[in-house]
């Protein structure tokens, strides 16, 4: 499924009376990868959360396929297309990798056990299917969360907050290639990271420190 166009229109964000960014305009089309960059406290995470529809913006609007995502049918449509991976990964420490993924996918579309095992093998967690996530390292827990990118294939928009955190170098490369392949197939990916993506020519950059 190809992504529709995302329009960020005159967006502003205020936190506790402090303006993080204002008059932000941006247009994303199928095939785009956008890295939101900026120093700490520039509002990267806030922008991603507003984009996901978790946080209200203080001004402006976001359109997906020409409809506002802030309410009504536009929001429903957006939620069906959006895969959001927050800074907190929603992985429960007491549940096993398989149970976690089974539930997180069921929140949208249930997936079967074989698909989960395949996805876990693809992120290098073969043999960890039944291990409670609390016994895993931070990087392995992150991989469990990232396995959702392989399972929820019907989602054409990814919004990823620091997806590279705690991953080793090999896993970082795999994820980079996965994001590029996803974009080539008509997806849109928006992500924040402190890890440099300059070597990837396809990635657009949005510098929040500069906008304000």
């Amino acid at each position, binding site marked *: 499924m190809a992504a529709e166009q995302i329009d960020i229109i005159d967006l502003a964000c205020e936190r506790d009376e402090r303006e993080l960014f204002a008059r932000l305009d941006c247009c994303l089309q199928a095939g785009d990868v956008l890295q939101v960059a900026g120093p700490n406290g520039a509002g990267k995470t806030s922008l991603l959360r507003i984009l996901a529809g*978790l*946080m209200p913006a203080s001004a402006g609007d976001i359109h997906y396929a020409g409809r506002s995502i802030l309410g009504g049918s536009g929001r429903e449509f957006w939620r069906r297309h959006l895969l959001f991976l927050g800074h907190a*990964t*929603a992985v429960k420490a007491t549940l096993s990798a398989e149970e976690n993924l089974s539930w*997180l996918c069921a929140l949208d579309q249930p997936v079967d056990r074989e698909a989960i095992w395949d996805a876990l093998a693809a992120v290098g967690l073969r043999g960890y299917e039944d291990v409670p996530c609390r016994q895993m390292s931070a990087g392995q827990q992150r991989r469990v969360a990232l396995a959702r990118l392989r399972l929820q294939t019907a989602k054409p928009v990814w919004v990823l907050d620091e997806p590279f955190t705690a991953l080793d170098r090999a896993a970082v490369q795999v994820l980079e290639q996965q994001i590029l392949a996803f974009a080539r197939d008509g997806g849109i990916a928006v992500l924040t990271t402190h890890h440099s993506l300059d070597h990837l020519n396809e990635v657009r950059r949005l510098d929040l420190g500069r906008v304000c």
Partner: protein
Amino acid sequence: MGSVLWQLLRREWQLTWRRPGEVLNPLVFFAMVITLFPLAVGPEPALLQRMASGVIWVAALLATLLSLDGLFRSDFEDGSLEQWVLSPHPLTLLVLVKVLHHWLMCGVMLVLLTPVLGMMLALPWSVIPVLCATLLLGTAVLSLLGAIGAALTVGLKGGGSMLLALLILPLYIPVLILGTGAMDAALQGLPVQGYLLWLGCLAVLALSLAPLAIAAGLRIGVSE
């Protein structure tokens, strides 16, 4: 739709089963608070019998309240709630299942323990079924109302258990009055159907309105 609710119930069950302490602690608290009363006021059966329903109800109310504090907190901290909010499924139904699970693990368990404690407080066997029935209906209301407070205080750093009590205890008063009123009637041999019907009304009212407030509270908490 049905399948996601069933999956949620299964997930909650798995989570509880791996941390049985979270179910046991409110029960032990309930039993301990009730034990304190004979020690404080003396063991005369007549006095205990007169106080029994009030003591059991207040202890059940406090045990429910304490167990509710963490209802949404771990899901909030590990980011699960964000995924719930973004799910295409209605948040009201998801939270309803979550509260239902809480009631099964807290309210129903308290009811199972009640006959023994009632007997220790010198309640005659004939009124124990009434006590259990009122508690069964009443704890459902307690869980639903308390979950509103738990949702509104979910984002507070450093725990909001005292604030939760402050917000929710006044709302618990009607349930307490009806529950203990039914017990007084039963002890005097008067009919109790009226009380049970009223408790049922409150349960239906809470069942239909509380999930809306809980979902609104969680959306507010997640948006911070």
